[in-house]
């Protein structure tokens, strides 16, 4: 008989008039997300929130500097040109891409059944529609920034 590691846990309090034979064992949840690649991918998806938050802070500082005048604004632009900032934004870019990908993968799960032309709209179609919308939104943004008069 081989014993390979005993899980540490706890008991529920004895029920049924204190019968010591009935002692349900509760296994600990610590480190649950390490137990399965599915959970690791979930955690990676959730961690993209830090990138979204960090970028909100960066933009917030930006509008603050904008309100403080041209010199302050140029200071913010100069900070964005530093190698540290560029490196950070590469990381943020990857995180934003992971966010977008996982967001559109989950999106079909949040929607009720949709029928188009008599057939049920599949999850993959909804996900691809999300990506298409992102492409259009990105092009619109670029047009807005470069074309603003």
């Amino acid at each position: 008989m081989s014993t390979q590691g005993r899980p540490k846990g706890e008991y529920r309090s004895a029920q049924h008039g204190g019968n010591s034979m009935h002692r349900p064992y509760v296994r600990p949840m610590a480190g649950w997300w390490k137990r399965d690649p599915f959970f690791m991918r979930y955690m990676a998806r959730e961690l993209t929130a830090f990138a979204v938050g960090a970028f909100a802070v960066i933009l917030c500082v930006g509008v603050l500097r904008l309100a403080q005048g041209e010199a302050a604004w140029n200071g913010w632009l100069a900070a964005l040109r530093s190698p540290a900032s560029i490196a950070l934004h590469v990381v943020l870019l990857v995180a934003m891409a992971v966010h977008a990908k996982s967001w559109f993968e989950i999106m079909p799960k949040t929607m009720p059944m949709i029928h188009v032309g008599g057939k049920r709209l599949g999850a993959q179609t909804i996900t691809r529609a999300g990506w298409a919308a992102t492409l259009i939104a990105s092009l619109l943004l670029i047009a807005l920034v470069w074309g603003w008069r």
Partner: protein
Amino acid sequence: MAESPKTIDVEVLRYRPEQESEPVWQRYTVPYTDDMSVLQALQQIKDDQDGSLSFRWSCRMAICGSCGMMVNGKPHLSCQTFLRDLLPGPVRIEALAHFPIERDLVVSVDGFVKKLEGIKPYIIPKEPRTLAQGEYRQTPAQLEQFEQFSGCINCMLCYSACPQFGLDPSFAGPGVLALLHRYNADSRDGGQALRMEVLGSTEGVWNCTAVGYCSEVCPKGVDPANAVNQNKVNSAKDYFLRFLSPRGSKS
């Protein structure tokens, strides 16, 4: 073509409260044929090696929902999981995750049953109906709205997949909420308002963070993740619009 092995090793997490304070792994060697399920391996152990091994099973054909357990760290129906897919072994078998272990592979299901009762899992007619009115009629489109969710066999694999349930066992959970949706989505049913209290409560849909693993492990393709997450919209509507439509007494 490689020869099939003659035996396969199976490790089971044992727990006998009368003789040990913590669960302990025990290894068995089981004769192997390539048509054997994990359930059959357990039955061989119980019949010919160790009669003290305790586990639930019934139909042997993935419809009763009794034989759920963790096989190599993932929730499976043992009758539908085959040793040939787990070669060369050893196969690690543990009681369904996130539930208290009663004994060996038997978990406590009381909580789940209570939650199921709490969502009123039956058709609540929209208005009183006489026999003379005859049967309900449904179009295929109306059937499609709930049919998938009616496939649930209460096997609780989705609960083992759900970390939010593991972290907070008061969460109604994927299976119960999928069944709640099955009734809400049925055109014969008029109980949506009654079930809304469960949906919008602190034990309801808002515990879900859309991990989505529940739908991956469901042996019946129920997609509880969809049932739970589309009801977030319904619950949010109820939350924000509840002051607009005065509901007299809670019927």
